[in-house]
């Protein structure tokens, strides 16, 4: 199911963190959100999964305003993986994933057969079948992230919203997680720091800069040396990845920071 953002403005503590943002993830598409720190990526995603309220504009799921849904209804359509990594409380892997079923369960009701099947399937999908009983707190960062992704799968959402899911993961776990997402082929809105990961994973990129979208389109068209200098303040060449053919951004780590890019 397609998700789009129309003319979105979000005001936090009197400041417009986002203004007039338009973006889109078409049905079955992985749409990436890139931009420097503080450009508003997380704020945008938080608004999509209804943690924040827009001061103007809309988030549309197909043609329905997400705000017109009840919280539970929205959670059946949109599953979020925020940057929160869970606390020190004693949960097993299965209990964490089972939380994804909450939008389908009534108060006081137990787990049904469907719930159990969906949870088991979600664990299998992330390669953690048979690890149900382990303590979530004792997992490695990569495993934790996969458990949280399984929780999002267990919501059986139409749209996945992922905020920097590869943060703090080593390279191998980053690659694994992205491969997992690629294999899912779900409508996904994902923010990523790693531009090369974004270029390889995403069908469409939206570049955020100071609260507005400054470029949208296929990675190959969006990620140009000019844009990288202007938005990220770095000098870089964009070449073809020798193995995959994806755009590969080669940063010039020796360059002085591009002029005027650091305000």
């Amino acid at each position, binding site marked *: 199911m397609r998700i789009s953002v129309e003319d979105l403005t979000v005001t936090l503590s009197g400041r417009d963190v986002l203004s007039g943002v338009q973006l889109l993830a078409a049905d079955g598409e992985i749409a990436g959100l890139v931009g420097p720190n503080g450009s508003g990526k997380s704020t945008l995603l938080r608004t999509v999964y209804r943690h924040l309220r827009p001061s103007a504009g809309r988030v549309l799921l197909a043609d329905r305003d997400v705000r017109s849904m009840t919280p539970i209804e929205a959670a059946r359509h949109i599953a979020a993986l925020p940057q929160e990594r869970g606390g020190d409380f*004693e949960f097993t892997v299965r*209990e964490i994933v089972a939380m994804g079923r909450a939008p389908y369960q009534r108060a006081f009701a137990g787990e049904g057969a469907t719930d159990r099947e969906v949870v088991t399937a979600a664990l299998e999908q992330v390669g953690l079948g048979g690890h149900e009983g382990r303590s979530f707190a004792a997992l490695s960062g990569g495993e934790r992230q996969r458990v949280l992704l399984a929780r999002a799968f267990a919501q059986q959402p139409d749209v996945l919203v992922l905020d920097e899911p590869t943060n703090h993961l080593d390279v191998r776990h980053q690659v694994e997680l992205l491969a997992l997402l690629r294999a899912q082929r779900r409508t996904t809105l994902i923010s990523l720091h790693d531009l090369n990961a974004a270029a390889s994973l995403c069908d469409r990129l939206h570049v955020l800069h100071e609260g507005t979208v400054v470029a949208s389109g296929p990675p190959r068209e969006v990620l140009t040396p000019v844009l990288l200098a202007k938005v990220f303040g770095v000098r870089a060449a964009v070449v073809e990845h020798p193995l995959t053919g994806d755009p590969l951004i080669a940063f010039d780590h020796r360059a002085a920071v591009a002029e005027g890019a650091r305000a």
Partner: protein
Amino acid sequence: MTQEAAVARQPVRTVRTVQAGLVAAALAVALLAALTVAVSLGAVDIPVGEVWTVLGHRLAGDAPQPGTRDLIVWQLRAPRALLAAVVGAGLGLVGTAVQALVRNPLADPYLLGISSGASLGAVAMIVLGAGVGSALGFGVSAAAFAGALASFALVWALARRGGGFAPMRLVLAGVGIGQFLSGFTSFLVLQVGDDQQTRGVLFWLMGSLGGATWSQLPIPVAAVALGLLVLQARARSLNALLMGDETAAGLGVDVARLRRELFAVTSLLTGVLVAVSGAIGFVGLLVPHVCRLLVGGDHRRLLPLSALAGAVLLVVVDTIARTALSTQEVPIGVVTALIGAPVLLYLLDRRLEHR
């Protein structure tokens, strides 16, 4: 991925629902045993069999057996033991909810400043207004509850600013208001003239179930039952809240509303509990924490088990408080602190080692 997973693969832990069932059954038996022993022990020890004979007569609606045993068992000890169970259950419940509310497994019901308000209300009534109070038909308990409501209103007003009862804001507001009100209480205690009053005040501040009567029971029983119902209905949302506000929002929880509800329920319940028993520390802090170690963090199991475990603990502790010294009763808060503080330190140590 699979390689690492295979290395780390451990036997799946015992299914927790089964485990929780066993723990619940064990606690239920323990509660019954603790209540029986509590009624049996005291200045005059009454054999357990005798206790049940008296209770059996009463519960069957028969005429009470003549003699002092009926008085001791039915009028003095039974209501007190039951009150201990109810207050303990309530503290366990509130502790669990507050720990989810502020997302800290070592938070305490009294963190939110409610008990300080209750204490101030009670002490003010004892010291200043005994005459006024009785004229209005207003007892110490009512004053304590009024104090709890007042501090609840203050903390609420402070914590809601900036939108939505963020954990840190709630804790800071609670601790701030709590300390402020405790200052007043200390000042009042210094104004107390006679020894009798001082004793009353101190007992109240350190918690006591002395003088429990049957008529005291209905309100806390109803409050705890209602609290359990309201919280249990939100058990899944509480689980989500532990993972973080954003996660909870993504799972369909109206986080701001849930926080308001939790804060209101825990505060009112704390107010009722403190009004009948004074401020009893450590139970609300330790019981949920230990239960979490036993059955895990899922609130669907944790809430009822914390209530049950709190009940057992407080019945036992109150029995110790009554019988430890032959000459006088020890305030129950003293006993919970003497037992609770070392356990808390042990748990802290254990947590730090796990990092």
